[in-house]
């Protein structure tokens, strides 16, 4: 058990070393979300009327935080697919290390990357007028939830990477799933404008529940839609936690099994 933890941390360290050796990756993975913040804030911010004191950016930031965290699963998946293809996984599997170390190490590494990206984004948000009103503890717990959500999602990335095995394909596939998921939600616009059926989908969408939970924790009253009056829109935090557990209960065993049986 002690070895399993050290082994995982060595793999995590490898990922950090990769970032140090190829700093471009880190730069671009932070530029993109910052660009989203600026675009949405200044392009849509003026035309979406929210009635929210402090303006659209207050509602936008939780949405963009969740979106960014969800997008990192593509990096998890493509990184792993790349390792598979290059035969690096074979080398790891031929070493006397814990079987779980490689995948656990990677999910931890992705979480560390998420921390960094979230800090940069929070700074960018602050610069364009984002001012959470809740207590420090509540704001802090919002970020912890965001990281937990990212961690849970990274297991779907692990599974996708092991299953698809081609970095470019899996990156496209991940994007095809996460992109509509983040937009078919309350993240950027009220769900009330959608057709009734879509409103239900949007409100049960884990992205929406996470965004709503974060808005609450950042001290917002306005839930940006939620007319369908569904359970998730009234209990966003509970539903989000339920989703995270569900994702991990399904994808951790699936990924570990896939990893054990993986052989080119």
């Amino acid at each position: 058990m002690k070895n399993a933890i050290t082994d995982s941390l060595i793999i995590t360290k490898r990922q950090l070393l990769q970032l140090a050796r190829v700093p471009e990756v880190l730069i671009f993975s932070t530029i993109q979300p910052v660009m989203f913040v600026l675009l949405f804030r200044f392009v849509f911010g003026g035309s979406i009327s929210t009635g929210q004191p402090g303006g659209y950016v207050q509602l936008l930031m939780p949405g963009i935080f969740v979106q960014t965290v969800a997008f990192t699963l593509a990096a998890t998946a493509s990184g792993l697919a790349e390792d598979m293809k290059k035969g690096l996984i074979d080398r790891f599997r031929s070493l006397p290390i814990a079987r779980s170390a490689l995948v656990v190490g990677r999910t931890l590494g992705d979480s560390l990357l998420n921390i960094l990206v979230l800090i940069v984004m929070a700074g960018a948000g602050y610069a364009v007028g984002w001012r959470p009103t809740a207590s420090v503890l509540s704001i802090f717990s919002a970020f912890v939830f965001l990281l937990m959500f990212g961690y849970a999602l990274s297991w779907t990335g692990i599974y996708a990477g092991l299953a698809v095995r081609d970095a470019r394909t899996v990156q496209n596939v991940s994007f095809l799933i996460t992109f509509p998921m983040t937009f078919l939600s309350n993240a950027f616009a009220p769900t009330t404008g959608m057709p009734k059926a879509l409103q239900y989908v949007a409100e049960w969408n884990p992205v929406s529940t996470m965004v709503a939970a974060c808005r609450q924790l950042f001290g917002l009253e306005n839930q940006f839609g939620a007319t369908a009056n569904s359970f998730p829109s009234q209990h966003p935090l509970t539903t989000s936690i339920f989703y995270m557990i569900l994702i991990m209960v399904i994808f951790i065993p699936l990924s570990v099994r896939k990893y054990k049986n993986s052989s080119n």
Partner: protein
Amino acid sequence: MKSVIAEHLVKTYRKGEVKALDDLSLDVEEGTVLSVLGPNGAGKTTTVRILATLLKPDSGNASVAGIDVIKNPDKVRELIGLSGQYAAVDETLTGWDNLVMFGRLYHLGKTASIKRAEDLLERFSLTESARRPIKTYSGGMRRRLDLAASLIVQPRVLFLDEPTTGLDPRGRQEMWEVIQELVKGGVTLLLTTQYLEEADQLADEIAVIDHGKVIARGTSDALKKQVGGERLEITVENADIAKASEIVGRISASAIHVDIRTISAPVLTGSVALMDALRALDEAKIHPLDIGLKRPSLDDVFLSLTGHKAEEEQAKA
């Protein structure tokens, strides 16, 4: 003592449609080099993957250093080194980063990992490029680093899966020198290759495999003998071919083979037959353009064992 034993290994893919291994058995004596020789798709990589605990066979048994690879894979992993067809190192990291990381994963501890990494870099002439990312390495350097990574803890048994595939002649030569050094150090080595020359150069024994089975086994010399001993090859002017064939036919041990102007004749007496042929041809006033004794190459071995050339199969695959 046998360091590697594989018994009746069977492995099928796609629900039995593709038979990768079809009752394959082999073994390697401790401290020797066995080369598994065969064309692409013959089952070489599958064999190595099973022995290196990466793959489970459908049936059959295998052990490495006396330990069952199927029942006790964790123990086996502590004793083996594996270097695959693709250079399995992290390309974004430097050579130094890679070796230190693998050292840590072998639980060597930080100081020992660094020491070992530096020793190996030195030994494989990579010290100068140690701080450069692998991406910038040549094919040969990558393979050497990959090999270094499989030697972090002195392995009892080393598996090298096509260590020189894709390398240019110089890279191949360098790799051979490195492997010959290792062999002198007494490691037990199982090496797969599709290069006949490579097996000839590096191995004590050769197992020829085709369609998932060992079809012949022995030293390079023994295999060559199995195909038939020496042959006399004589090239003459077109006009002389009929007369020359008749003369050589009398000296030959069995049926000769005649091309447009080349005669190939199996002989049992080696240089004596060569002298006889020269004398007889001279008496008949025939002056050969070329004459010589040829021992069969491993290409000939493959052709006579499988009925097809190793190279042809490669082109198909």
